[in-house]
């Protein structure tokens, strides 16, 4: 490797909070050479984003750099001395030699300046261009990132751009001063999968054409596989393992890397259960002497009481911090492929069984804007003539991108969204025709699990109150002792200890909160559970735990699921049948295997092709 562009040396970042000092980054070191793509991978809280922010001098109080330094082309851009020369050099380098793009393109642009002006600002600052020349160049840059009609788009404001277009504009802005390194912090996480594919292709193309280095910060191993030559896996503020993507994604040596890979559901592979990493990441406030992963590690040995150093591998192909690495086959356990493990009678002969839910030609329209006194009301059709059935005991996956109407469809089953036309029947009863009382009764049998485990639980109620509330609301249980017993049963069912009942939601992690949400949904012993993106806010290892729990509960309680999601791989894993939605219509519906292996509709095909997969050719860029 030629001389490194970026050298990160012993970086330590901490945040001083009221509840103690959080040691977010605990001494990480790595180099990045020219024209290299490196992925920095880990789950939330592992310190990957803080590392990137620190590189750019974005760590503000209460955060501070505790130790370490960062060099750019051999000269300090960040150190603990905080001298003005370093500061000035960093500001010179930032935007000119190192550029950064962020996760949320919707909020990353100043809403009050045109796209062109915001790109031109970089050129004026770092390339000394005149306003006119900068505007011309901004137009060329928009063309480079494949924004159509750049000469018109350059004078538009951010709100006139879609999410994917904004991320393209941000990439254009980042590349304006022709940097050597682009730091991309989860650049596609907020985007739909087809848009994500376009952005990843664009980054790969630009990397190859411009000889750019990219530091890709992501939780998505598929993204790493598609774009990166090298990978560093972070856990609890430290680098656990680093090496070539081609090796690390297929023969990981650190048990955490192996666990992460095994917990990631694959698009083209079915299996009974996802592998999980049991337990929770450690509290970053606590000092550490042992290996951070030891409590969750199946390979732990006595030596792990002493934290391992990150040492170069014997063959020099990477670095590893582990006393007892994986030496086995590429995957911890080879998983069964496409076996009919979970193919019960229900999906084999649906005609023989009465469907639990039957949706016929469902349309949901919402009024838009103000209605004029005369003239027709303006409406938006969210769901446009959708028909499907859900059979007892099966899981129907409902997949679509944002705005496809999948959430509205789920809500219409409960009549939480208006049924404008068409019919929804639940167990033979017409949901749309029920009066308020009957609807209330009917809703007992249909419960919801929500996406965001943080905002869907009332922070002022205890877990017992949250889980027990449906019984009280429906007037089914008044005796406090019996209520309590029922709550504790439910908590046990979702794998939470009984003493969780008296605590408030803030005491729990995201995965635990989602278990509380599931317990609440089960309180009334429903027959159908509508789960709206139940795992998309969770980290990979936690997601696998919750998916497994949902499958166990289905087997034990004979539940029927409508599983609404955008993540095709998770749906592949949990669903028996799948319906693909686009613009309010179901474009394809059928058994999962059939839809995934032999998609008929072009939209389904493009969706499936857009998902970045770990098994894509690793380091795809090296060849192109």
């Amino acid at each position: 490797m030629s001389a490194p562009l970026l050298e990160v040396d012993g970086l330590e970042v901490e945040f001083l909070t009221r509840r103690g000092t959080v040691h977010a980054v605990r001494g990480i070191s790595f180099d990045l050479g020219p024209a290299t793509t490196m992925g920095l991978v880990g789950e939330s809280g592992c310190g990957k984003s803080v590392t990137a922010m620190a590189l750019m001098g974005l760590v503000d109080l209460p955060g501070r750099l505790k130790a370490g330094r960062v060099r750019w082309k051999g000269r300090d851009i960040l150190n603990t001395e905080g001298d003005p020369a370093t500061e000035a050099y960093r500001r010179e380098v930032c935007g000119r030699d190192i550029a950064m793009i962020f996760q949320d393109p919707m909020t990353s642009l100043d809403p009050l300046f045109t796209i062109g002006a915001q790109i031109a600002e970089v050129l004026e600052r770092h390339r000394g261009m005149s306003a006119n020349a900068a505007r011309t160049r901004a137009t060329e840059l928009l063309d480079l990132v494949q924004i159509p009609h750049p000469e018109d788009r350059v004078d538009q404001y951010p709100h006139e751009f879609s999410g994917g277009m904004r991320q393209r504009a941000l990439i254009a802005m980042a590349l304006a001063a022709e940097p050597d390194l682009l730091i991309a912090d989860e650049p596609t996480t907020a985007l739909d999968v087809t848009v994500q594919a376009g952005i990843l292709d664009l980054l790969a193309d630009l990397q190859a054409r411009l000889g750019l280095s990219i530091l890709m910060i992501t939780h998505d191993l598929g993204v790493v596989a598609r774009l990166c030559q090298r990978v560093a896996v972070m856990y609890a503020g430290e680098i656990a393992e680093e090496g070539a993507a081609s090796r690390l994604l297929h023969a990981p040596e650190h048990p955490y890397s192996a666990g992460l890979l095994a917990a990631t559901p694959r698009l083209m592979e079915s299996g009974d259960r996802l592998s999980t990493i049991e337990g929770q990441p450690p509290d970053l406030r606590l000092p550490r002497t042992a290996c951070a992963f030891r409590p969750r590690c199946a390979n732990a040995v006595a030596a792990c009481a002493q934290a391992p150093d990150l040492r170069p591998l014997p063959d020099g192909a990477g670095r590893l911090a582990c006393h007892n690495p994986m030496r086995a086959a590429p995957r911890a356990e080879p998983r069964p492929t496409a076996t009919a493990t979970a193919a019960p009678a229900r999906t084999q002969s649906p005609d023989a069984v009465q469907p639990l839910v039957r949706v016929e030609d469902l349309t949901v329209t919402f009024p838009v804007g103000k209605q004029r006194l005369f003239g027709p009301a303006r409406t938006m059709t969210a769901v446009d003539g959708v028909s499907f059935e859900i059979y007892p005991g099966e899981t129907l996956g409902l997949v679509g991108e944002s705005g496809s109407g999948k959430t509205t469809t789920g809500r219409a089953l409960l009549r939480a969204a208006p049924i404008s036309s068409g019919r929804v029947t639940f167990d033979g009863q017409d949901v749309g025709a029920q009066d308020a009382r009957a609807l209330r009764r009917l809703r007992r049998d249909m419960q919801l699990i929500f996406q965001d485990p943080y905002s869907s639980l009332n922070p002022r109620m205890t877990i017992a109150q949250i889980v027990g509330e449906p019984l009280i609301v429906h007037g089914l249980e008044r005796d406090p002792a019996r209520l309590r017993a029922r709550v504790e049963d439910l908590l046990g069912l979702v794998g939470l200890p009984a003493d969780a009942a008296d605590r408030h939601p803030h005491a729990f992690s995201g995965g635990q909160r989602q278990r509380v949400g599931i317990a609440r949904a089960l309180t009334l012993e429903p027959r159908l559970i509508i789960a709206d993106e139940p795992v998309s806010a969770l980290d990979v290892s936690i997601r696998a735990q919750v998916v497994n729990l949902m499958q166990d509960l289905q087997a034990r309680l004979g539940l029927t699921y409508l599983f609404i999601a955008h993540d095709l791989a998770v749906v592949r894993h949990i669903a028996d049948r799948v319906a693909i939605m686009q613009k309010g219509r179901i474009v394809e519906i059928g058994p999962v295997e059939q839809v995934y292996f032999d998609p008929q509709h072009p939209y389904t095909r493009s969706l499936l092709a857009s998902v970045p997969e770990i098994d894509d050719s690793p380091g795809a860029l090296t060849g192109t």
Partner: protein
Amino acid sequence: MGRYILAKLWQGVIVVLSVVVVVFILTRLVGDPVRVMLPLEATQEQRDQFEAQLGLDRPIGVQFVDYVSDVAVLDFGESLWQRRPVMEIIVERAPATLLLTFAAIGLAVALAVPLGVVAALRPEGVVDRIVVLISLIGLSIPQFWLGLLFIVFFALTLGWLPTSGSGTPAHIILPALTLAIPAMTRLVMVVRSTMIDELNAQYVRVLRVKGLSPWRVIAVHALKNSAVPIVTLAGWELIRALSGYTVVVESVFAWPGLGLTAIQAIERQDLILLQAIVFLTAIMVVALNLLLDILAKAFDPRIDLRAS
């Protein structure tokens, strides 16, 4: 844009018409204007004559049409107290009030913006705590008392400034300060909190990563994003000053504006003058609101003027 302004103007016209109706009803139907305006010892003959002079003996419908057509050409009749056309008095007094309020709110904005921005740079820092403390003190002091305090200190004790009245530039300083300080303390809090929000916004991070100078990030980007709430609140302060606070401040400092005139009209039971002042204040408030809406659009391209 043009359609939006027309729509807003139309709304303004409705507001003004409502004011006309309310003022008409209040002065004619609530109590007997003749009894209110004439001394107690007036004879019945004098009362009848006065009633005829005001046209109050005619049918109410005729009175209303008459009243509206007079108001439409800004003819409010003759002041009972000064025995000359009301408009003449208003034209004479209004400039003093406008000068005072614009000077005061201008001063308030000029002080509040830098103070609020500096406080927002480091929330909970030393500067921020001092600014917040000063704001809280300013918010807690009654305005008339602040005015009296100024008179005692700057005029009587130090003798630097005149106690009251008008005539020289020095005369405006104390009333303007008295009007400005409470407005400023309210504005500082708004500037501070919106700037804290803006400086923590994602786009500010992006701007910093572009290598822009902190000054440009703060003064060009974040401040412009804070402009809509700041301008809206400054306008609101202007409206509040024009339509209320000047009454107090002008009385304390004997500043010869509309506020003082309104008090004098009340003391002399000059309903005709008072209703003209109320009506013209309403028009100024409507006009200012329209101006503020247009100004907000100038700052923020996302405000869709056709929408409302």
